[in-house]
């Protein structure tokens, strides 16, 4: 250890220090500090002569360390390190004793104490210096590639500058095109340049530049690394179009039937789901906008693409629509479902929020099936069957569940055979639903579609009699039981065995087999479900007088309300709050029924109010026939102990809810035999779900994973009510009552083509793109890929520029200006689109709500800006200029128009801005009123503006045709998340913080990350472009060297002492300290560490130390400081 030869240099800093501290005395007394061999004071140590003096002294006196007693080290520490370097002294043997900010300034009036304190500070610093080591800065490599986040004018400019210098730049932009906000403007102030004209050359230059890689429709997902060495993960959002093939021909947009609001036009115009934001977009590619699974599609147990086929129908593409059902979704039952489905899709349909009535999805589906039959005389289903798997599956029950399962299993190339006790396929569809609801011919044709795929059908085969379950389990690789529930429940009251009392479902079955049972004149049907309604309406058609007897009220009836309504219309009588108590017979034949009246009590387990018999209210009614339709049960008598199939306490087959497997691992089950009587579409959904389980199982895969939410699920999408067509729901045309009740012809007649297209157009497209696939058919380069998923890319860059720009504060946050609900109040960006010659109105100024030309337009300044209580405190800088410009342009477009600008101050302080403002007053005769608008009120097509003319001292109330509001500029959505990924500070408004507001407004405090444009703070285009070039310049400075020098005053971990506890890793704000999982020791990443010292303070074993600021040094300083006390 060499003997210290320290020099102390005391700066006067003019009078800043010398005016309070006795600098000469200080220098003198410093000479007496141990280790100090030289001391001097000087008026401006940082000046050239001052620095020269220090340099000379170091050389002459052979100093091996210096203390400069002056201002804050953040100002001149670097200066004196450089002096040391020049003098041949290690720059880290330089310490600053701050006797200005810490001594002379705070203690202005206590000169004596200040001087004593200054001496203490100098003494401490000398002690510290004696412990300093000679250090060398270290070098880190720099990747010579840059990432620019944000493709607006700032991003484009920065990218061009860096690329022109020969380095690669990745320009990532969130929307499908670069250009940002500037590209949407009408004309820019003060030159009235067309921004599209001045920007598109830059955009194309960027697109064609060999060093610029534009990554559009993408976002930064993750950033790791440090200055010079960043690793960035980019997520490319799927446009569902292969951009390498897309040639921008626009054919897809032309056929796309889905209309959505245009973001580009800020809601002033519409676009299609397949769109390009702007004709000169760069990249010039189309994008398909999908919002997610719409409620109709989500609610369907088989997830038919209802949105898709409704949309295709609205575009008159019926073949394509039907193909989405039969071929895409592999669902044969278009005609059947279109007639009898309980339509959960319609219950979830978002159109209901518009006019209380959903889209007529079911009727549309029926129309498509009927259309095919009319046009082609046959029905079709085309699906690709995979090559034979060599495995076979047996299905028991040819109802909708079994048939749907068969389709899905057959697709995978399995051999499938369906057994059914009936003569013809269809299950309850054939046996339980009367022909006036479901035409049997339609049913037969659609069932046959299943067999045409190669599925074998064994009719008239009853399980438990003709074949046995055990044999199926042995002979087949899997078995699906879909045997339904049609055994009529008994009421358990006296007289049920009388002739004349029978099951409703049994009766319907007979009818459907072609028989005509003989009924008496008076028929009663007990029950309130669909079977009861079907039974009643069927009996009516055979000529009887029918009464429904139900123990609760109509509200609790489980039947579809349409069925109940139809039954009433046709003349079925309803006896509610009534239940049979016993059946009275004569000679074994039914004669009358004793009924008892009920009242409703508390809810029972079904959630419906329990019926309670009213004592003494019995009545005897004469009936010839009574049909019970009180709830069916499955007939599971075929199941033996050996089959190992457990049942539930309610007598249904027990299955795992998610996979539908029974207690026998080879046997699956679904539909009514599992749930009890449910609906057709539930059975189909179960069939599909079970087929999925079986398919996975037969492939040897785990069929239990990720099986939740496969059946009906919820979607949060709600669509945009503003775009809804006003067309009301048209009721289904039906046979007149008199034409119905003498026969079993279908009651619902179907719509006309014109009506069905109109009904399909009621859809509000909450899902965005409906996947109707009409675009695929017309895309010549075959670029459309609906299954294309998002993908990620990894980039390595040395520097990052954040240029993500702004958006306007939404009107919804300003209730005093209508909160976004007033039709004739718009924001400035919307008005730009209207004024824009390439905008939705081709530059004609018309009110968006009704197209009228406004003669009086009020412009509202400072909406949200300069408003610390309800908005933001800052001024958004550009609004005064753009409102003045908009007033001028409005006047150019509407010669007799009257613009009124309501302002607080007019801030037009750029080059030629004041002159522009003067022109607007003098030439355009715009009226300027100094008074903030306090409120807007819309009525009768006009907007009342409440304000004040503060110069005249009068309140003002003015009627305007259109009001244009200038909302505060706020950071783009997503800035907070991006900032946290980059570890960037943001201010209280969300703007990215610069390193220093005056001197370093392009850099951030995160090394290697720069900021440009409005994201740092609102500014106009001139300043934005300048700042962008500045940021590029900073990046080029970084790239001008192969390596970057970093100060070595960082933390280091003594590997011998470190126990790997991880506390330093936890406290480090820069993620610089990482515990090696193998060695169990912490190590500091030299490039990331900023030398804050948190780890050194937190380390419990004192393994971490901060170079040249060790514990020893700090304690020595404390000792010096407290010596006199």
């Amino acid at each position: 250890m060499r003997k210290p030869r320290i020099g102390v240099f005391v700066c006067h800093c003019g009078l800043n220090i010398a005016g309070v501290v006795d600098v000469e005395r200080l220098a003198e007394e410093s000479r007496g500090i141990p280790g100090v061999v030289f001391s001097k004071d000087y008026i401006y140590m940082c000046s050239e002569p001052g620095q020269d003096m220090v340099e000379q002294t170091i050389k002459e006196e052979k100093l091996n360390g210096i203390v400069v007693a002056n201002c804050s080290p953040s100002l001149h520490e670097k200066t004196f390190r450089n002096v040391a370097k020049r003098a041949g002294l290690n720059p880290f043997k330089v310490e600053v004793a701050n006797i200005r900010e810490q001594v002379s300034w705070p203690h202005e009036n206590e000169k004596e104490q200040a001087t004593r304190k200054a001496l203490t500070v100098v003494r401490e610093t000398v002690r510290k210096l004696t412990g300093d080591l000679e250090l060398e800065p270290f070098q880190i490599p720099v990747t010579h590639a840059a990432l620019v986040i944000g493709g607006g004018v700032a991003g484009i400019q920065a990218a061009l500058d860096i690329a022109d210098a020969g380095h690669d730049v990745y320009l990532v932009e969130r929307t499908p095109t670069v250009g940002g906000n500037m590209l949407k403007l009408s004309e820019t102030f003060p030159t009235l340049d067309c921004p599209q004209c001045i920007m598109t050359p830059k955009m194309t230059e960027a697109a064609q530049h060999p060093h610029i890689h534009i990554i559009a429709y993408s976002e930064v997902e993750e950033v790791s690394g440090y200055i010079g060495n960043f690793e960035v993960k980019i997520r490319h959002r799927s446009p569902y179009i292969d951009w390498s093939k897309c040639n921008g021909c626009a054919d897809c947009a032309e056929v796309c039937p889905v209309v959505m609001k245009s973001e580009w036009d800020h809601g002033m115009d519409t676009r299609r789901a397949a769109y390009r934001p702007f004709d000169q977009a760069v990249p010039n590619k189309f994008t398909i906008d999908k919002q997610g699974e719409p409620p109709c599609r989500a609610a369907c147990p088989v997830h038919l693409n209802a949105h898709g086929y409704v949309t295709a129908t609205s575009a008159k593409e019926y073949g394509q629509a039907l193909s989405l059902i039969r071929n895409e979704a592999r669902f044969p039952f278009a005609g059947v479902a279109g007639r009898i489905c309980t339509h959960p899709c319609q219950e979830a349909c978002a159109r209901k929020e518009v006019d209380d009535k959903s889209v007529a999805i079911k009727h549309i589906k029926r129309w498509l099936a009927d259309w095919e039959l009319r046009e082609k005389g046959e029905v079709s289903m085309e699906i690709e069957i995979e090559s034979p798997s060599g495995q076979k599956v047996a299905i028991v029950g040819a109802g909708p569940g079994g048939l749907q399962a068969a389709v899905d299993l057959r697709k995978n190339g399995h051999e499938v055979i369906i057994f059914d006790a009936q003569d013809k396929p269809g299950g309850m569809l054939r046996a339980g639903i009367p022909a006036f609801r479901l035409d049997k011919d339609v049913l037969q044709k659609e069932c046959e579609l299943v067999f045409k795929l190669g599925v074998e059908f064994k009719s008239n085969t009853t399980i438990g009699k003709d074949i046995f379950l055990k044999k199926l389990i042995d002979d087949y690789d899997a078995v699906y039981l879909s045997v339904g529930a049609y055994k009529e429940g008994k009421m358990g009251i006296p007289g049920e065995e009388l002739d004349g009392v029978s099951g409703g479902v049994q009766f319907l079955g007979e009818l459907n087999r072609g028989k005509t049972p003989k009924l008496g004149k008076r028929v009663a049907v007990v029950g309130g479900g669909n079977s009861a309604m079907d039974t009643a309406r069927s009996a009516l058609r055979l000529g009887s007088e029918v009464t429904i007897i139900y123990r609760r009220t109509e509200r609790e009836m489980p039947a579809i309300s349409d069925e109940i309504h139809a039954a009433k219309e046709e003349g079925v009588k309803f006896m509610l709050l009534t239940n049979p108590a016993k059946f009275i017979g004569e000679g074994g034949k039914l004669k009358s029924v004793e009924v008892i009246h009920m009242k409703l009590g508390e809810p029972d387990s079904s959630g419906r109010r329990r019926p309670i018999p009213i004592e003494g209210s019995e009545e005897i009614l004469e009936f010839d026939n009574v049909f019970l339709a009180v709830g069916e049960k499955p007939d599971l008598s075929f199941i033996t102990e050996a089959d190992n199939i457990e049942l539930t306490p309610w007598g249904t087959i027990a299955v795992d809810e998610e996979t539908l497997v029974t207690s026998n691992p080879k046997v699956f089950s679904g539909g009514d035999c599992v749930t009890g009587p449910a609906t057709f579409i539930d059975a189909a959904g179960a069939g599909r779900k079970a087929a999925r389980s079986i398919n996975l199982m037969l492939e040897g895969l785990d069929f239990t994973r990720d099986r939740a939410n496969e059946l009906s699920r919820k979607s949060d999408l709600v669509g945009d009510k503003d775009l809804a067509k006003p067309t009301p729901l048209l009721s289904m045309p039906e046979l007149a009552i008199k034409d119905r009740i003498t026969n079993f012809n279908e009651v619902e007649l179907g719509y006309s083509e014109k009506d069905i297209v109109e009904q399909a157009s009621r859809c509000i497209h909450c899902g965005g793109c409906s996947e109707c696939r009409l675009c695929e058919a017309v895309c010549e380069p075959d670029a459309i890929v609906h299954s294309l998923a998002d993908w990620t890319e990894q980039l390595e860059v040395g520097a990052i520029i954040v240029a993500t720009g702004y958006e306007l504060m939404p009107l919804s946050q300003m209730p005093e200006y209508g909160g976004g609900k007033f039709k004739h109040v718009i924001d400035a960006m919307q008005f730009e689109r209207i004024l824009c010659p390439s905008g939705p109105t081709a530059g004609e100024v018309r009110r968006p709500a009704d197209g009228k030309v406004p003669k009086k337009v009020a412009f509202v300044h400072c909406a949200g800006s300069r408003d610390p209580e309800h908005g933001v405190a800052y001024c958004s800088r550009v609004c005064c200029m753009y409102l003045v410009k908009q007033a001028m342009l409005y006047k150019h477009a509407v010669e007799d128009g009257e613009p009124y600008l309501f302002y607080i101050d007019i801030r037009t302080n750029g080059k030629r801005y004041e002159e522009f403002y003067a022109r607007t007053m003098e030439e355009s005769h715009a009226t300027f009123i100094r008074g903030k608008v306090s409120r807007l009120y819309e009525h009768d097509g006009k907007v009342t503006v409440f304000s004040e003319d503060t110069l005249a001292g009068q309140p003002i109330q003015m009627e305007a045709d259109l009001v244009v509001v200038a909302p505060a500029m706020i950071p783009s959505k997503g800035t907070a998340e991006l900032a946290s990924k980059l570890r960037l500070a943001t201010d209280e408004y969300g703007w990215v913080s610069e390193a220093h507001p005056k001197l370093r407004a392009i850099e951030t405090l995160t090394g290697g990350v720069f900021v440009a444009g409005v994201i740092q703070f609102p500014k106009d285009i001139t300043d934005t472009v300048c700042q962008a070039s500045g940021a590029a310049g900073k990046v080029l400075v970084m790239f001008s060297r192969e390596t970057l020098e970093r100060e070595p005053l960082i933390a280091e971990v003594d590997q011998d002492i470190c126990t790997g506890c991880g506390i330093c890793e936890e406290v480090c704000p820069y993620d610089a300290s990482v515990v090696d999982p193998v060695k169990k020791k912490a190590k500091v990443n030299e490039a990331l560490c900023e030398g804050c010292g948190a780890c050194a303070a937190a380390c419990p074993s004192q393994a971490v130390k901060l170079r040249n600021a060790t514990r020893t040094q700090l304690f020595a300083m404390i000792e010096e400081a407290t010596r006199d006390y």
Partner: protein
Amino acid sequence: MKSFAYYPGCTLKTTGKAFEQSAYAVTGVLGIQMREIERWNCCGTVFSLTTDDTMHHIATVRNMIRVEEMGEREVLTLCSMCYNTLKRANEFIASDPVRLAELNDFMYKEELKYSGKVKVRHLLEILRDDVGWEQIRSKVTKPLSGLRVASYYGCALVRPEGAGVDNLEDPTVMEDLVSSLGAEPVNWPSRLECCGSYQTLANKDLVLERTEHIVSSARESGADLIILSCPLCEFNIGTRQAEVAERSYGFKGLPVLYFTQLMGFAFGLEAKELGIEDEATIKLITEMGAA
């Protein structure tokens, strides 16, 4: 039966008697008990609010001690002005332990020390939050369908933010009340504008101009009558209508009622019980309301 301490304020015992009367009537129907504070004193209105200091607020906050003496935690007010004064003064004192101590010190002659915990509530707030519109709807025996009602908030009910009973730019509590009574709430531009308040003493012309503006605005928006919650507003835009008619040719007024009176009608109470004497008003409501 939920009970509240009830602070009437000066005017409700004199020119605003009908407001108190009708309030007792309707709260009775709703199962709310209003217990008038004993020995209450004037809240001081604008005088008490002139300066934010303990001295000016003493008279106001003294009433809180009375409330605690009654064993109540919440005090119900009807008059917007009293509500505003009591609420703001109470907040100012109760939110700062130093001020609270100061006040209690000064009021050493009182038996009870003020805990700072009394809550000041306006009846509209209680109807919305404690009773609920469903409950009110269930008590309506004469739905006022066909009656178009303009709700006048004025200033003190909704300003400043924090003291108001509802959003100060777009309040809906009175419109919701009107809907629950079966009537049709009217949207009109002047519902939040000042009636002129105490300028009625020194600058009557200003108030007359305001009255003309506000009442005409309600009429033009299709209202049949105006409801409000402050006897000063009632005096200005109600009673002063006669003077406006004298000097402004063509001015047609509108009946002005307290919201509790309208409630009373809907609950099937008699006009006399509600303190309404004007035949024309009674006729209007019973005829149109029954539509």
